[in-house]
């Protein structure tokens, strides 16, 4: 049922006077279904926290509407919105112990003491903070404060949980363990959550859908798989994925039976027209300049490919990262075996047509992914 989840409609955020202040969030619209986990991904300062704070009611919405669980909440006081939040800066209450900090989130719901104790114990176990429940925020580590703050948000039964970088301070092992548990907990209780993160693995593992933001603008809002396979524009393409997508400027010429991409330094990539759908060919004919993207995992070494000179070759324990000089830039490729290559060795690279992403040369909007139109 639509309306049960979160709906953001044309929301703008200006810090300072409307239209003149800092434009932190621009015309943001998105709908999040009840029970969904959404990850908000984007570079620092792109407006993630501002978005969460508007949803929670700590910042006024400059323009637009937000509705949650069927109610238009953007004019409500925070207390009326029924939203839980884990803050970027933890914001634990210093005079209270960790236990009390977590429990006070339940104060307003007037549960009997034994139920509160039970819930706190459960959350503490989930987040592995049982042994610090009796301590004060000033005497625990950053990662422990972060988990206490996360516990304080998760323990509540809110319509929406906003988690602002909830695990940024934790070591990868613990993060991996908690990720699984938190996802299970959220799904089991049927909670709806928005999670801000800088960790793409976390976004992929936890989220049903990922929202990519940049410069206050929502770039793409889709499942992790779609974002990876069909990035909506050059920004999403290069921002999501590790190592990042290789991008080269190219001119495109489509003739009767070939489509040719001309890269710098005279590198020519020639494909048969049958490699692309007619619609894609039509789009390519309309353009002279494009940006050609290919993921490091999709680059192949093969006989007869374009020669490239190896500049870096690094075995990471489970895969080899190779960087090679290619068409005036650098092509990064990943191989799953240990590859012994010396610096300056020449390798031959093949870019298969089905793994090519073509973006408009000026706007960066995706034109095609493989043979299909974007």
């Amino acid at each position, binding site marked *: 049922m639509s309306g049960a989840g979160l709906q953001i409609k044309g929301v703008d955020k200006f810090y300072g006077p409307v239209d003149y202040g800092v434009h932190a969030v621009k015309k943001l619209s998105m709908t999040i279904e009840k029970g969904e986990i959404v990850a908000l991904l984007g570079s620092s300062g792109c407006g993630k926290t501002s978005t969460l704070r508007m949803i*929670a*009611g*700590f910042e006024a919405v400059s323009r637009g509407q937000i509705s949650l669980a069927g109610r238009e909440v953007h004019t409500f*006081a*925070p*207390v009326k*919105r*029924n*939203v*839980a*939040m884990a*803050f970027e*800066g*933890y*914001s*634990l*209450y*210093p*005079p209270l112990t960790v236990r009390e900090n977590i429990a*006070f*989130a*339940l*104060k*307003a*719901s007037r549960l009997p003491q034994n139920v509160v104790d039970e819930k706190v114990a459960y959350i503490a176990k989930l987040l592995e903070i049982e042994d610090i429940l009796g301590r*004060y*925020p*000033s005497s625990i580590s950053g990662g422990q*404060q972060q988990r206490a*703050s996360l516990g*304080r948000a998760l323990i*509540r039964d809110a319509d929406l949980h906003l988690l602002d970088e909830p695990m940024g301070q934790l070591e990868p092992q613990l993060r991996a363990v908690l990720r699984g548990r938190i996802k299970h907990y959220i799904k089991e209780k049927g909670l709806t959550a928005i999670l801000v993160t800088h960790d793409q693995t976390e976004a992929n593992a936890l989220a049903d859908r990922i929202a990519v933001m940049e410069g206050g603008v929502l770039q793409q809002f889709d499942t992790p798989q779609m974002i990876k396979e069909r990035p909506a524009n050059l920004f999403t393409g290069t921002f999501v994925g590790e190592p990042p997508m290789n991008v080269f400027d190219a001119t495109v010429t489509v003739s009767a039976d070939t489509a040719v991409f001309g890269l710098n330094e005279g590198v020519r990539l020639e494909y048969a027209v049958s490699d692309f759908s007619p619609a894609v060919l039509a789009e390519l004919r309309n353009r002279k300049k494009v940006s050609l993207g290919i993921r490091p995992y999709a680059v192949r070494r093969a006989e007869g490919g374009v020669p490239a000179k190896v500049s870096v070759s690094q075995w990471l324990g489970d895969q080899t990262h190779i960087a090679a000089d290619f068409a005036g830039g650098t092509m990064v490729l990943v191989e799953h075996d240990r590859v012994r290559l010396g610096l300056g060795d020449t390798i031959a690279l093949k870019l298969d047509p089905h793994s090519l992403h073509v973006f408009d040369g000026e706007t960066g909007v995706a034109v095609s992914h493989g043979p299909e139109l974007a």
Partner: protein
Amino acid sequence: METTSTLEKTLRLLALTLVVIFFMFPIVWIFLMSFQTNETILRIPPQVIFEPTLSNYTALITGKLTSAAGTLDIAFMKNLGNSVFLSVTSVALALVLGVPAAYAFARHKFKGSEDIAFTLLSFRFAPPLLVLLPLTQYFQWLGLANTYIGLIWVYQLICLPLILWIVRGYFEDISADVEYAYRIAGHSWFATFRRIALPLAGPGIAAAGLLAFIFAWNNFVFALVLASADKQPVTVGALAFVTSSGIQYGQIAAAIVLSVTPTLALALYAQRYLVEGLSLGAVKG
């Protein structure tokens, strides 16, 4: 801790002792004077050994001042009572008005809020006497001259800006997100103010209150001009010790000891809050 040599320790101790003697001497001297009669005080050279007497204190407490020229009625105890009453009520009123105002100024920036806050502070810049002349006129018209209410009102000029500006700083030091975290859990802003902001700023409020109390207690000019004998605090009442037959040093000393005691007691009591206030920075989140 670095290890310090014995010489350094000794020198440090010596320096400390000198500083303490320098600052404590007048107080100790006055304390000693308060147990002497005028004759022993004025003897030259001054004597450190004397026969202590409580006559100064009894004179103050009974209100009968015996001097060479005869007995004189003084209202010292009444003055002391006035001082306590005026200072306590003024500070209380200033806290009731100033703390919420400080919170508002700290949390809700609106057009002109900075100007209003500064205007309130500027009351402290004006030379009191300049304010007092027109004020006396107004108070006479309003029937507020020589009333406690009028005095307490004027004392707000001293207490309110002080409390407002000090407490505001403490509120600003509390991370707003700590309050948001509480509000989002289903509490109103007032509950948040009472349960989160007030306790966290508590030490700061105590410090500001104490400071305002000391300023109010030490005030002289306002009360001198606006209050007659029965409403006067000790600062003004002490003038009575300058009599036609000489200055009653012993009684003045005793009066000083008595009038310093409440402030001193308060400061000692509030000391631990002040220390807490300083350590607030370590825990603000």
